[in-house]
C-alpha cells in the first residue's frame, strides 16, 4: 500500500491522468496518415486465414524440393559469412510449414495424410515456392518470410524495415524483472524503451509491470513505430505501453526527470563493419537499426549522456540498461559513465550474455536506497498530514 503510494508520490506530475493523455495522443497519431495509411502492418503468416487448399502430395513435392534446396547449401553460407547451415535451414523449413499449414500436426505425422487428401494452407503453392527461393537464393531472413519472430514467450510481428529482435536482448527483460519483483518503485513507475523496433522490450516489460506501471517507447523509423503499435495491440497493452515516433528522447520531453527505468538496444555496429555481416543482416535488415557510426558508439554515448536528465533521482534510485557490441564497448561505457558522467551513475556494472560475451551495461541501484528514500518520503507525507 504504502509503496505504491510512494511511487506515485515520487512521480507526482506523472499521474495516470497524464499517461492517459499519451494513450490518446497515440490513438490520434494513429489516425494521422503519416504513420498508418501509407504503410500497413503485415499480418504474420500464422495469423492469416487458411484459404488455400493443396493436395498432400503437392505439399510433399514442395517439401522435398525445399529440403533438397536446403541440403544443397551445406555449410557454404556458414563458411562464406557465418550464415545458416543446412541443418538450421531444414529446421526453419519445418517452422515455415508449422506457420503455413492449418493442421500441421496431422500433416507432419508419418502416415497422417493420404496423398490425395486436401490440406488447408495460408499461402498458395506458388508463394510457398517463392518464399523458400527467397530464403535460399536471396538470403531473406526466415522471420521476414513468416512475418514473425518468437522472442521470449511472445510472438512478435516483424517485417522489412524492422529489426528482428535478437535472443541476447531477452536477457534485458530478466534484468528488469529482478528489479520489478523486488521493488514496487520499479513495478509501478514509468519506463522508457528507446529505439523499440518491433516493440519487443516495451511489450515484455509492460507485461511484468504493476497496475500503475507504464512504458513509453520511441523509434525514429515510421515502419518500426507502426509495427510496434500493432504488436502492442495484439497483446492488448494499449493502456500500458505507448509507442511514439521520434528521435531517442525527443518524444519524451514532457516526462523529463520522471522515468524510473530506461532500457535501450541502440544501433552499435561500426559503420564500415556492416557490409561484411551475414547477408540476412547486411542485405535485409534496416541500416538505421544497426549503424552506430564510426566506432559504433554514437548512439550509446548520446543515450548515456541524456539518460541522467531523464531519470528520476538518477544514480541513487533509477535504473538504466543498454546492450552493446561486446567487451570493448562495455568497458568504454562504464568508464564514460563513471568518470565523465561521474556522480550520476553509481552502480554501473557489466553483465554477460549466455554466450559469455560481456553484453549489458546496467546501472541499477540497491534496494536499501529505496528504503531510505521511503523513510524520507513518508516523513514528508506525515508532515503534510500534520499541517492539514
Amino acid at each position: 500500500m504504502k509503496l505504491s503510494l510512494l511511487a506515485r508520490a515520487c512521480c507526482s506530475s506523472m499521474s495516470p491522468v497524464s499517461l492517459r493523455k499519451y494513450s490518446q495522443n497515440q490513438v490520434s497519431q494513429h489516425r494521422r496518415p503519416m504513420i498508418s495509411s501509407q504503410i500497413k502492418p503485415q499480418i504474420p503468416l500464422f495469423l492469416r486465414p487458411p484459404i488455400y487448399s493443396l493436395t498432400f502430395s503437392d505439399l510433399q513435392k514442395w517439401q522435398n524440393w525445399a529440403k533438397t534446396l536446403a541440403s544443397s547449401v551445406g555449410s557454404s553460407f556458414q563458411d562464406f559469412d557465418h550464415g545458416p547451415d543446412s541443418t538450421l535451414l531444414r529446421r526453419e523449413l519445418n517452422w515455415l510449414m508449422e506457420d503455413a499449414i492449418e493442421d500441421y500436426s496431422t500433416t507432419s505425422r508419418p502416415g497422417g495424410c493420404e496423398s490425395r487428401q486436401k490440406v488447408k494452407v495460408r499461402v498458395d503453392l506458388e508463394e510457398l515456392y517463392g518464399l523458400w527461393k527467397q530464403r535460399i537464393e536471396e538470403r531473406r531472413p526466415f522471420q521476414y518470410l513468416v512475418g514473425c519472430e518468437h522472442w521470449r514467450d511472445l510472438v512478435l510481428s516483424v517485417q522489412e524495415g524492422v529489426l528482428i529482435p535478437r535472443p541476447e536482448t531477452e536477457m534485458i527483460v530478466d534484468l528488469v524483472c529482478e528489479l520489478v519483483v523486488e521493488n514496487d518503485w520499479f513495478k509501478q513507475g514509468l519506463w522508457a524503451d528507446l529505439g523499440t523496433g518491433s516493440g519487443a522490450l516495451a511489450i515484455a516489460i509492460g507485461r511484468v509491470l504493476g497496475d500503475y506501471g507504464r512504458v513509453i517507447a520511441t523509434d525514429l523509423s515510421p515502419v518500426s513505430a507502426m509495427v510496434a503499435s500493432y504488436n502492442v495491440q495484439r497483446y492488448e497493452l494499449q493502456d500500458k505501453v505507448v509507442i511514439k515516433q521520434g528521435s531517442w528522447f525527443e518524444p519524451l520531453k514532457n516526462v523529463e526527470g520522471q522515468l524510473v527505468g530506461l532500457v535501450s538496444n541502440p544501433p552499435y555496429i561500426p559503420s564500415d563493419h556492416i557490409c561484411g555481416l551475414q547477408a540476412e543482416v547486411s542485405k535485409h535488415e534496416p541500416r538505421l537499426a544497426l549503424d552506430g557510426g564510426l566506432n559504433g558508439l554514437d548512439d550509446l554515448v548520446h543515450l548515456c549522456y541524456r539518460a541522467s536528465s531523464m531519470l528520476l533521482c538518477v544514480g541513487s534510485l533509477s535504473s538504466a540498461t543498454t546492450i552493446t557490441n561486446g567487451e570493448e564497448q562495455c568497458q568504454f561505457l562504464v568508464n564514460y559513465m563513471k568518470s565523465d558522467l561521474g556522480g550520476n551513475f553509481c552502480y554501473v556494472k557489466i553483465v554477460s550474455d549466455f554466450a559469455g560475451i560481456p553484453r549489458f551495461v546496467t546501472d541499477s541501484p540497491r534496494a536499501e536506497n529505496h528504503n531510505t528514500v521511503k523513510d524520507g518520503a513518508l516523513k514528508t507525507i506525515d508532515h503534510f498530514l500534520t499541517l492539514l
Partner: protein
Amino acid sequence: MKMFSQSSLLFHFRQSLRHTIRNVATFSKLNTKYVFIGAGHNVTAERVNEFPSCFSPTLKWLSGSSQGLAHSIQCRLLGSQAAIEPSASDGLTVEGIIANRWTILDETEGDWKSHAAAIAQSIQLIKRRLQWKQLLVRVELLSAELDKPDIWDDPVHAGKVSREHGSLMGKLKEESMKSLARMRRDSKEKELRALLAGEQDSCSCFIEVQAGAGGTESMDWAKMVMQMYKMWAQQRGYGVTVVDEMPGEIAGIKRATIKVEGEYAFGYAKAEVGVHRLVRISPFDSGKRRHTSFAAVAVIPILGDGASHVQINESDLRIERFRAGGAGGQHVNTTESAVRIVHIPTGITATCQNERSQHQNRASAMAVLQSRLNQLEMARQAQMNAEHTKSLTEISWGNQIRTYVLHPYRMVKDLRTNYEVSDPDSVLEGDLDGFILSYLSASLDQVGYGS
C-alpha cells in the same frame, strides 16, 4: 493393497463381461449365434503373450493370493476340433467355481471370490444365450460328417455340409470373435493398468535416445529407435514433442530427447530403458557387410505439481548458449537459440534447441534438468534402501535389453523376457506393446505378488 488391486481388476472384468453379455444377446437376435466358449488351458503369467488365441486370463491374478489358489480361467475360441473338455491343471474351472457357490456380493465390494463367481456365472450365461451346447453338438456333427471318407460320394450333400460348417466357422470368426477380442483387449488393458501401479507410472515422461559407439551406423540406428518411440507414442494417442536433437554429421542422430505427454506414458515407456542392439547389412558400407549397432534409451518421469521436486538453486546453474558463433547480437540473425543448462554440483546437463525462442529453449531445458535431478534423487534414495548399488549410468541407461536382427534372418527378441517377434518392421513402426506388456508382467512376477 495388493488384494485390492486384484479385486478392482476383477471388478472391471466383471463389468466388461456384463457388457459382452449384452452384446451377445443382441447378436443372438440377429441370428448369428455361434460362439464357443470353454475353459481351456491354464496359462501362466509369463506365457500370456505367447498365447495368441487365448482369452486373456485375467483371473491369473488370483494365483498366489493369500488363499493359495493357483488357477486361471481360460475362455478360448475353439477350432473345428471343437469340444475340448473344460479343464484346468488345478481342476478349477468355470463350472468348478460355480459349484463352489461362493456368495456374490455387490460389485463395489473388494472381495475376489465374489468377482470370480460373478465372472464364472457370466461366462455360463453367455454360453446359454448363445445356445452353446446345441452349437457344439451341431459343429461336432458336421465335423464328423465331413470326416467321413465317403462324404464326397454325394457332392450335393457334401457341399451343403461343408458350406454350413464353413459359414458357421466364418461367422464365428467374424462376429463372435470381435466381441471376444474386444473383451480380451479390454481385460488385457485392465491387466496392464494393474501393472502400472507405481508412484510415477501415471506421469508423462521424457524419452532419450543416445547413439552408441560406431559413428554413422549407430547414429542412424539411434534415429530409427527414436522414430519407433515417436510412432509408438502417437499410436497410443500421446502428445509428442521433440525437445533436443543433435543430428549426426552424415546421417542419424547423436542423441535426442522427446517429451511424451499423457496418462501412463512413463509407466509403459520405462519398460524400454536399456541398450538396444541392431544387426543388419549396413546401408553405409559399400562392402555390404553385416554391422552391429547400439543405441541407449533412458526414460525420465515428469513429476506432477503435487510431487516433491528437488530444489534447484539458481546459483548452481550455468546457462550457456551453444553453437552461437561470432559476435552475436545485432551482427547475427539466426533462428538458432539453443541453450544448455549445467547443474554445477552434479554435472548434469540439459539441452534444448527445438523451440523458436531462447527463453522457451531455456524453459524446456530447465524442465528436463528438473526431471533428471528428481530421478537422480529418487535413485539415490532407492539405493539407500537397497543393499546392492548400481552405478549412475546403469540407472539411467541400463543394460542391453533387446536385439533387432534384420539380417541374415528377421527377428526382434527381448533378452529379459525372451519375448520375440519375426517382423522387425512393425516393431520399428512402433508396435511395441507386446514387448512392454510382457516385460511389465514378468518384472511384476519377479517381485512376487502373492508373498
